């Protein structure tokens, strides 16, 4: 199998940028050409929310895929994909506040209090924002070990975000349930004892092939 190297990284990153940016272009065209339904506000909020959730799944899939396929260079795309979580979540919240609440500050606070799922989403967004702000290489170096501790909070987002989705729907719970389970599995995969077992098994397999 082709082993991806740093030379391929630029192509890989370009591909991921394209995959991240194209849905936004699609959304803009859909809204501009009146193809975003009778209530484009609801359409935009849902579309960007799903975008953030999908980007989160993609971010958390990178390291399992990199390890499974032994393509270490993939790990260097994690920040890029993770920043798309931040981008979509920002659009999601901006659309909610500007197009749905129409900049009613008072309503924002009363809604956040009255709708627990918004509180959960807001908490997830605060974490994502913190991670985005501390994602610069220079800051990463300066923060040292603490950087990893802070960025482990993405696992909390992986729990909060699908709960936010599940809690917001009226009755169509199957789709949010799939996200809950999927993201849950990606977290379980990272649990220390699961991880250890996997490493041990990997070593045995490695010895046998040698």
């Amino acid at each position, binding site marked *: 199998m082709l082993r991806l190297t740093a030379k391929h990284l630029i192509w890989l990153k370009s591909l991921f940028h*394209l*995959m991240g940016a*194209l*849905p936004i272009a*699609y959304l803009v*065209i*859909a*809204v501009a*050409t*009146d*193809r975003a*339904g*009778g*209530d*484009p*506000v*609801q*359409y*935009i909020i849902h579309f960007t929310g799903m975008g953030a959730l999908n980007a989160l799944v993609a971010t958390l899939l990178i390291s399992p895929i990199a390890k499974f396929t032994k393509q270490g260079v993939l790990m260097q795309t994690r920040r890029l994909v993770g920043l798309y979580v931040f981008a979509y979540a920002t659009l999601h919240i901006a659309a909610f506040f500007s*197009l*749905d*609440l*129409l900049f*009613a500050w008072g*309503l924002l606070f*009363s*809604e956040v209090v*009255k*709708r*627990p*799922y918004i509180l959960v989403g807001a908490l997830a967004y605060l974490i994502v924002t913190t991670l985005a702000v501390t994602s610069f290489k220079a800051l990463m170096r300066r923060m040292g070990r603490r950087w990893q501790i802070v960025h482990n909070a993405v696992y909390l987002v992986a729990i909060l975000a699908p709960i936010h989705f599940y*809690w*917001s729907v*009226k*009755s*169509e*719970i*199957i*789709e949010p349930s799939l996200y809950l389970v999927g993201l849950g599995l990606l977290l379980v995969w990272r649990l220390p004892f699961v991880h250890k077992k996997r490493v041990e098994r990997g070593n045995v397999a490695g010895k046998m092939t040698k």
Partner: protein
Amino acid sequence: MANSSRFTQGILKKAQWHIQDNQVTPESVFRSRRHIVKAMGLGAIGASIPGYVQAGLFDLFGDQPKTSFITTPLTFKTNPQYGGSDGLTPFDKVTSHNNFYEFGTSKQDPMDNAQGFKVDPWQLRIEGEVERPMTLDLDQLTKMFPLEERTYRLRCVEAWSMVIPWVGFPLAALLKKVGVTSKGKYVAFETAFDPEQMPGQKSRLMGGGIHYPYVEGLTLAEAMNDLTLLSVGLYGKTLPPQNGAPIRLVVPWKYGFKSIKSIVRIRVMDKQPPTSWNQLASHEYGFYANVNPAVDHPRWSQATERRIGEGGLFSATRIDTQLFNGYGEFVAPLYDGMDLRKFY
């Protein structure tokens, strides 16, 4: 023959939603918007795009009309009594933003999935505690009672609202015709059950977990109130399937889910009938479901609503929700002495 005008003191008045011919974009021009976008060459990037986006792009650039269901003009008189001064929600939005889980849970699903829905033949059975049970066929739905046009506000429990010119007849007229017996206290309604035509009834993923057929109910007093309409049309023509063809209920002082669509059975009962959303989550959706800004949904506020009106993305408005959706003068006496927090 089309008669969307009303006759007042010898003057022919246009219905309020009538627009001048020169204000209408010809349909051919409207349809060619997509050719314009296509001509920009945006289709070329298609190959590199994920599947779900491709499906959406096909929507964007596809030329097939989305609404192939045939609706026909109705003859009616306009009833100005309940009109109000709210601006109408345009036809395009009324017919493309629907909660009709039988055809899928996304707002556009009903428009996309209901176009092949067969309403002919149709049978609406009226039975239960009535003296003369009867079955109406499609033709009788629009011919048995004089039709009137009424413009009502529609407030969804999800906190958005529309203003729609319905065509129909009061439910009371039908109930008087069949004669409710002294035992009749409630009226139950049932939507058609046809999984072959209604994909949401076939697949739990598409149907949102509702136990089909969808059922609704009113007290007899609510059912007999003059506001309660059996609608067979909107904007002067028979109902499109996504709006509940061929006949649906419209109860404008209650949240939209009470206004059950595509009805096949009306049953007068001596006890309170089960209702679909109440069965699904009784702490969130009550039997009465009266629009009430003071009683919040457990997960969101009902104090305000976003009005879906004319214009695009940036012309949205948020308005205060009114008790009984502003129809208190007609229906408040129905709930005298009732604790509306308890009977939500």
